[in-house]
């Protein structure tokens, strides 16, 4: 399968956890520790889906998303799922404002993760 | 009396036949092997009674007063007969089964 997921989170445990689930489901996976690193990587290699954490040093998730959506097409149209510990309506709205396509609340089971990633990539595993 | 032998030699089921009727019905059918069962005045029959009919397979004098018996149970009785008949006709020890 040729779908590529980029995990953007500063916690190595989280990145490991998601990578484990997604690789086993057949996706190719790359990681970035913050928004800045993510943008640098995306300018070189596009991704089919992003998993974006909110709280990161150097460039947080919302700032990253706003910046992403201002890039030239087709990079700007990269689908992005925000994964965050906060679940309040205002946080969901802020993510939407910034340009996030969907919102999942941590902690995320591997099962839920693969299910939503599958839906968003159009891949049934 | 909900189950009785009448003068003509038929076993009559009359009215609502409760579970207790199963035993007298069985006895009558054993004593009078050729008797027909007349259910023209029968409004309902407990499963136990129907069970006896299924095993004894007597000829039935109808139509039953109860449409349920006539429309649903009579065909089930008739079909049931042919089912057991078919099984009896299969040779025992048929490896093909």
């Amino acid at each position, binding site marked *: 399968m040729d779908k590529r997921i980029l995990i953007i989170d500063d916690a190595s*445990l989280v990145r490991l*956890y998601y990578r484990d689930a997604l690789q086993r489901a057949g996706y190719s996976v790359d990681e970035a520790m913050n928004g800045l690193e993510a943008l640098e990587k995306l300018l070189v290699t596009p991704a089919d889906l992003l998993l974006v954490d909110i709280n990161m040093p150097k460039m947080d998730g919302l700032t990253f998303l*706003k910046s*992403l*959506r*201002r*890039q030239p*097409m*087709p990079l*700007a*149209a*990269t*689908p*992005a799922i925000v994964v965050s510990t906060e679940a309040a309506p205002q946080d969901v709205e802020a993510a*939407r*404002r910034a*340009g*996030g*396509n*969907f*919102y999942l609340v941590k*902690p*995320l*089971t591997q*099962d*839920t993760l693969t*299910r*939503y990633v*599958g*839906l*968003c*990539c*159009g*891949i*049934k595993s | 009396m909900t189950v009785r032998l009448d003068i003509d030699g038929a076993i009559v089921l009359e009215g609502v036949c409760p*579970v207790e009727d*199963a*035993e007298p*019905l*069985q006895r009558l*059918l*054993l004593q009078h092997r050729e008797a027909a069962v007349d259910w023209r005045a029968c409004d*309902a029959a*407990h*499963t*136990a009674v*129907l*069970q*006896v009919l*299924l*095993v*004894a397979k007597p000829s039935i004098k109808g139509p039953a007063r109860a449409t*349920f018996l006539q429309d*649903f*149970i009579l*065909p*089930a009785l008739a*079909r*049931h007969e042919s089912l057991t008949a078919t*099984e009896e006709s299969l040779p025992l020890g048929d490896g093909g089964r």
Partner: protein
Amino acid sequence: MNEFLKQFLIEGRELVEQATEDLLALEEAPDNRAELDNVFRGFHTLKGLAGIVEFAAMSRVLHAAEDRLAAVRSGERSVTGELVTDLLFSLDQVAQWLDELEREDRLPMVPDAAAAALVARFQTTAPETPATTAMVRTEQADWIEGLLSDHPQGREQGGVAVRYRPEPDCFFRHIDPVALIAQLPDLRAIRLVPNDPWPPLQELDPFACNLTVTALTGGTLGQVADQLHGVAGRVEIQALDPARSWRPTALSPEAMAILEEQLLLVSDPAEEGFDGRLGSAGRISTNVLRYMGWAAEAQKLQHGLDKSLALGRAEPFAGVLRQLLSRGSDEAAAIEPDKLSFLRSDEIAVRALRVEVERIDALVRLAGELTVAKNALGHVSRLAKEGATPETIATLLSDQYALLDRCVQQLQHSLLGIRLVPMRHVFRRFPKLVREMAAHLGKSARLVTEGAATEVDKAVVDALSEPLLHVLRNAVDHGIEPTMQRAASGKSAVATVWLRAARDGEQIVVEVEDDGAGIDTAELRRVAEARGIAAADEIAAMTQDEITELIFVPGLSTAASVSDVSGRGVGMDAVRSAIARLGGQVEVETRPGAGTRVRFRVPFTVLMSQVLTLEAGGQVFGIPMEIVVETVRLPRDRIMRVGAAEAFVLRNRTIPLINLPHALGLARDPLDDSYAQVVITAGAGQFAAFEVDRFGDHLEIMLKPVDGLLSGLPGIAGTTLLGDGRVLIVLDIPELLN
């Protein structure tokens, strides 16, 4: 909510209930003209109500239903199982809309597509053009094939197939299997199949049931399930796929959620990055549709996306998406589960607890979170083995603990929430009942309910049903005066009975109030004196309130005649003990000539626990089942003395033995010199055994925590009231052991 809507809600609900009953009656007697008229009138009136409050969708649906009924009345169409199902479905939809009205305080906003779909049910439509997706076909089991070969029309008709295998001894439990099946709606075929080969007639045991009954009916899964719920554990039912109608898979809830979010995203007035948002929303949406097998729709959406990107606007992409979403929710509503297999009859009781889907979803999410926490802990332990620093471990552990703590709290909260049901479930049948009871007695009364939405533990709701009925009966029978009498005393001809429920802290307060004649305290005094309840001077000295309390004395009835509505006596003693068993109280207030109010105060939730009852020192106690390992009849020669204490060995374990009556300070009374009745308990990794006089039943009780006099005594976990009025003390074994 304005007055009109309030009235609409009340009347609407009553009409729906009435129409449902009438419809079911019509199904039983399709040729009954009067029933048909009743049903028609019901729908007609409901439609009228919808018109008044301008609820267009409801009007449309009911109008279509009315048209179909008109066709039946004129003889063009007949009453079929399918028509009844469709009509019931529309009534159910109306009921749901009414619920939504109550919740949201405004009329539901029904998408055009949803109303249209409902209307379409009542019109003969050609089968839907097949989508490019797989047909859902269920494999028919052998027994179903058998039925269909007897009744080939079943292949096109669809309906429900039933297989009922009663237990061999069912006749002894007053079960008539064929009769049960005979009552199913729209019966089409029956088969009687022996489980074991028949013996010859003389060897047949006529009272052992050797039959499996299979049947085809035109009813719905719901109807059949309801009809057979009493024997649910022995029944298998399966909906049949009629050859002509099938649907593509519905959009899953996750898919719907994602698509709805994309719609919100593109509708959001964004400052910059519009192309990016639109483009990403489009990509995700088309992916989701392809995942669900809606390939054609995905194409359509892609067209809309391309156009929108070119124009730099959300439309037409958003429009297509909106359309697809409403279709998606229709499909989801139209799909029925294709197989219901009852495993145990207690599962039916569980099913009867209608739980909102959101509560279940919340629990599913929680279960997921707990799994994650568990996995993370496993990870931490691996890190520890690999030699991570204590500080790292400590931080990670602390995080996981916080997570687990939150999860457990949420779990407890959610579970409690699930047991809560609105009082409406109890109130539902009462208005009609009151009217009928009154009419039967030649009186005129109506019931007004308040607080039907008050949420209460299901166990409490179930337990309140009987007592409330009792009290309502009393109100109509004894409290309310005949119409003439009311008119003569200047009261309204129609009496009113109020049924109110409200939450008051940890309690629920339920009241039944009437504007009748009140309790005749003078008469009560006379009867009490005549029955010798107390000495004449004591009775004379009692206050009005004290006299009123006398209605709780068993058998005391001041009714001049015992009507068949109430039966013997007032029954308030039974009501009081039922409420006391719940841990609640009953109060009565009355004003002569003006009315009576009966008030129940019950806890809004109860702790149910299982106890093993036992007798010790001549008294009955309970111990929680969760600590009981087993009960044994121990030969006394196996008891050893260990210093001042006793013990015995069981399966290589030495277990200390305590004499319970002795431990509780009660007289020791060995009933059997050779054997001791012993219960072995376990707690905190230790075993302890207690000798008792004898054992009783396992009970499920509502445990009331100790207060008052008992709270000072050690070793008592709580109390409950047994059916015979005795108090059962439940012991706290760990406390006793210390």
